[in-house]
């Protein structure tokens, strides 16, 4: 048993979700090797080396890995797992894990295919060495699946595993010098949202808005409430499609999965695809003028009324 974890980061800092993935890795089996692939990302490797449960850090530092291009990172991972191309049966690692973020989802299936094994997507529980639970059909069913592949490749739902401590370790850092750089793909640009607010999937409180907000400007109401609560702001697909807010705010089956202590759904009807992304939240508050809205079926506290009156009032009282 040995586990390789692809670390998520922005070349400067470790992304908190990696601590949840490492927690899943710890449940599966030590030793844990963590791979940091990026450009100018030595700081990240140093941070990872300090995590108590990490046994070895591999650092692959090259411009080829700067943007986590799947073609390059997948070949790097393959080379770590199966250096001599002898097949999954004699691989150096029995498990490969990454977060089920857009990075993990982009890279890991390529590695699985190159190894000739399947991938388990968005794993939410580890039952035994080969048995896992994952949500299917927008979270309306939970499947227990068994894999007898020689290497278990899986993306992990961050919110389903408690983060491990980022302190207490002193793992060795080993440089990986090989560079995989596909000539068939070129990074052009990235426009990343900059926000002072906590990251959506890691926030303890989330305030989300839907079509009921009516336009993008009205989201300011939610930003202001969120800032008072130290919350992140999310949205329904309808709000994103209508252009009220950017795509990275979408919560749901095909957006982000969140499970904060408190989730406040404002002007969101509660379609199954939205519920799939937030119904594991500890406490759910729904604000909707339609008392029949399905969101009330999952809400701990519902307020029926006009959000334009209720939201400012809540902000005033907290």
């Amino acid at each position, binding site marked *: 048993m040995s586990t390789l974890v692809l670390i998520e980061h922005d070349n400067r800092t470790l992304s908190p979700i990696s601590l949840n993935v490492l927690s899943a890795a710890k449940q599966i089996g030590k030793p844990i090797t963590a791979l940091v692939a990026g450009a100018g990302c030595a700081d990240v490797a140093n941070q990872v080396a300090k995590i108590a449960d990490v046994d070895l850090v591999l650092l692959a530092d090259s411009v080829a890995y700067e943007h986590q291009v799947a073609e390059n990172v997948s070949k790097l991972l393959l080379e770590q797992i199966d250096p001599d191309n002898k097949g999954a049966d004699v691989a150096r690692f029995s498990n490969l894990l990454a977060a089920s973020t857009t990075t993990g989802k982009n890279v890991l299936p*390529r590695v*699985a295919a190159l190894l000739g094994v399947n991938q388990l997507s968005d794993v939410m529980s580890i039952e035994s060495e080969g048995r896992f639970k994952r949500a299917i059909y927008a979270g309306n069913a939970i499947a227990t699946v*068994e894999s007898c592949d020689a290497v278990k490749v899986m993306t992990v739902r961050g919110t389903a595993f408690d983060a491990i401590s980022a302190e207490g370790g002193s793992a060795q850092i080993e440089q990986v010098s090989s560079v995989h750089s596909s000539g068939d793909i070129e990074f052009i640009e990235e426009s990343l949202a900059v926000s002072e607010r906590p990251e959506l999937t890691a926030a303890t409180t989330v305030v989300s808005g839907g079509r009921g907000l009516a336009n993008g400007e009205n989201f300011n109401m939610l930003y202001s409430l969120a800032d008072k609560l130290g919350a992140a702001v999310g949205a329904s697909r309808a709000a994103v499609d209508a252009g009220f807010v950017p795509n990275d705010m979408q919560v749901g089956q095909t957006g982000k999965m969140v499970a904060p202590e408190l989730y406040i759904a404002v002007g969101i009807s509660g379609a199954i695809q939205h519920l799939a992304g937030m119904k594991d939240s500890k406490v759910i508050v729904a604000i909707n003028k339609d008392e029949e809205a399905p969101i009330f*079926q999952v809400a*701990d506290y519902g307020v029926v009324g006009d959000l334009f009156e209720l939201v400012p009032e809540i902000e005033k009282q*907290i």
Partner: protein
Amino acid sequence: MKILVAVKRVIDYNVKVRVKADQSNVDLNNVKMALNPFCEIAVEEAVRLKEQGVATEVVVVSIGSKSCQEQLRNALALGCDRAIQVESEDGPDSLSVARILAKVAESEEPGLILLGKQAIDSDNNQTGQMLAALLDRPQATFASEIKVEDGKALVTREIDGGLQTLRLTLPAVVTTDLRLNEPRFASLPNIMKAKRKPLEVKLADDLGVNVSSNLKLISVEEPAQRQAGIKVSSVDELVEKLRNEAKVIA
């Protein structure tokens, strides 16, 4: 340039699926089935690229039992030119699907292969990436914009932090996200016309792919049900409850 689009027959997205009493699987008996919404977006994009003169032919492929011919006809009605059904039991695993698609791609030689980012039944989000790896071709997942020029595809992707743009050398694999386009509805004349478009049936065995799987579904259960809570009548009451009962705000 030829475009290959892979589509999957899945439960209609409006239907709430139920788990069978014996927990062996979900119950799909008498449930409305449809084209996977992301596949519909892939079909629409391919048809638009043909209408723009970028593509010359759109071939649609699905792997599954005979019933998926219904979705293939649907795709033909939306503007695809020709269909291929690769006959197999329903629900082959993603690696098998990717291997079959790789074989189809090798014989069809498309310049661009479009897939949905995710099938809304398995919620796997992996087949396109696997296919790209097997073909050793570049990929752009979660596309919200595709431009094809000079043998390259310029693709904008929806990523967790925002948007990313990549340029891929064709042939390439692209998977679609929700905001790539809004699929059209099939018109009645086009539905009639689709019945006469070619639909070829192949066997997975003939393509040399063994669909046996290393993954086994052990059981399926209902998720923990949330109890509907209470309706509060005022903001005062809400804030009081959040503070003193749920203790989630200070």
